[in-house]
């Protein structure tokens, strides 16, 4: 069973007969994280891939365990948050561009953080970052609170009153806002420090797991590969 995200019909599951066989001509074209041109036919229950041709195999990405982990992370998010045959060209473009960026850029952090915030927006879960989600007052240039259940930032007066609110630095908030309203080129101009990257990553993952009501598989994999626990 193949899991595909297509430009025309969104997420679909399809079968391609015999691709596990080592001599199959389709096999190499239907590897994970590959952009392909497909010809499919509708079977009784599943779509059937009849022809496959690689457009971009994102080969660099496949040479690095951590990059494989990140590619798996963005596809896992997509899978968990989208429904079958619910087409969305913007999501398709975001996926395609993000895989390309992970593949070619020296640091995968920015493309992945940018993907997270843009995906939330395209899915309709855009966090509110300019006004307090409780009282509506405009967020000032100071450290704030953030509530996942309320979906956004809280002013320092409302924050302590909301049970699940946690503190968020002004800097984290600024980056979130910047990514939310910028093109990727614009977003890339602001340097992302390792500390800030960790804060954003944690916040976004808490946000995603709140909506999914369950944990994601890939962040654990990424952590294990980063820490190399088997050493020694």
């Amino acid at each position, binding site marked *: 069973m193949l899991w595909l995200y297509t430009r025309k019909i969104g997420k679909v599951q399809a079968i391609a007969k015999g691709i596990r066989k*080592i001599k199959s001509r389709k096999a190499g074209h239907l590897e994970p994280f590959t952009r392909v041109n497909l010809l499919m036919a509708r079977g009784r229950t599943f779509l059937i891939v009849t022809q496959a041709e690689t457009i971009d195999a994102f080969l660099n990405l496949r040479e690095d*365990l951590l990059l494989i982990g990140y590619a798996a992370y963005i596809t896992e998010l997509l899978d968990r948050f989208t429904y079958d045959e619910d087409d969305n060209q913007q999501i398709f473009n975001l996926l395609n561009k993000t895989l390309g960026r992970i593949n070619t850029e020296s640091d995968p952090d920015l493309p992945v953080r940018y993907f997270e915030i843009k995906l939330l927006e395209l899915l309709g879960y855009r966090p509110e970052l300019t006004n307090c989600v409780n009282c509506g007052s405009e967020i000032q240039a100071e450290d704030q609170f953030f509530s996942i259940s309320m979906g956004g930032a809280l002013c320092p007066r409302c924050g302590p009153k909301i049970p699940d609110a946690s503190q968020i630095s002004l800097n984290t908030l600024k980056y979130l806002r910047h990514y939310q309203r910028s093109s990727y080129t614009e977003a890339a101009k602001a340097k992302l420090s390792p500390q800030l990257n960790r804060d954003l990553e944690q916040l976004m993952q808490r946000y995603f797991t709140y909506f999914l009501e369950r944990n994601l598989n890939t962040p654990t*994999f990424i952590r294990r590969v980063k820490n*190399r626990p088997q050493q020694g």
Partner: protein
Amino acid sequence: MLLPAPIQDLINAFSQLPGIGPKSASRLTFYLLTAPDELSQDLAAALISLKTETTYCQTCFNITVTGQVQCEICSNSDRDQDVICVVEEPLDVLALERTDGFHGRYHVLQGALSPIEGIGPDDLKIRELLARVDSENIGEIILATNPSLEGDATAMYLRQQLTPSGVRITRLARGLPVGGDLEYADQHTLLRALAGRQEMGD
């Protein structure tokens, strides 16, 4: 139609198997219902002994007969003791054995790294492989994981982990098309891949 529980139970059980949908499950069930009793009895006995009479070799983690600590390959002193071929599954051992082109011993990881399915290094027999390399006198490790994303990722990870030990690390040659399963390869392809194995450099 509401089926009697024993029939429905067997259909449900068959449906759990890979490659078997509800239709094939019903067909198999009704076939057994009308077939001679011995067929069901033999099948039931085989299924029970499959689990009770097999175990994992404590050295290479291939399947072996219950009561044995080591499999036939590990306990065979005629095999090269200093080469270990690392594979994902027991069926891969079988495929390589059929070629008669490898005379060392194996290590079965029991899977491959898969970030999507959440299979990390701790879920595979990697720690056990590293321990073997530390305690036995191993000259070469052949990484024979599948030529797929998961197999390659596993090979990359193993290289990272094995490099400090100084052991020679090789990977099956790329005569094999990407994305396949080793168990389906024909013997010629496998033999060529074995002969053309290469150093795994940076």
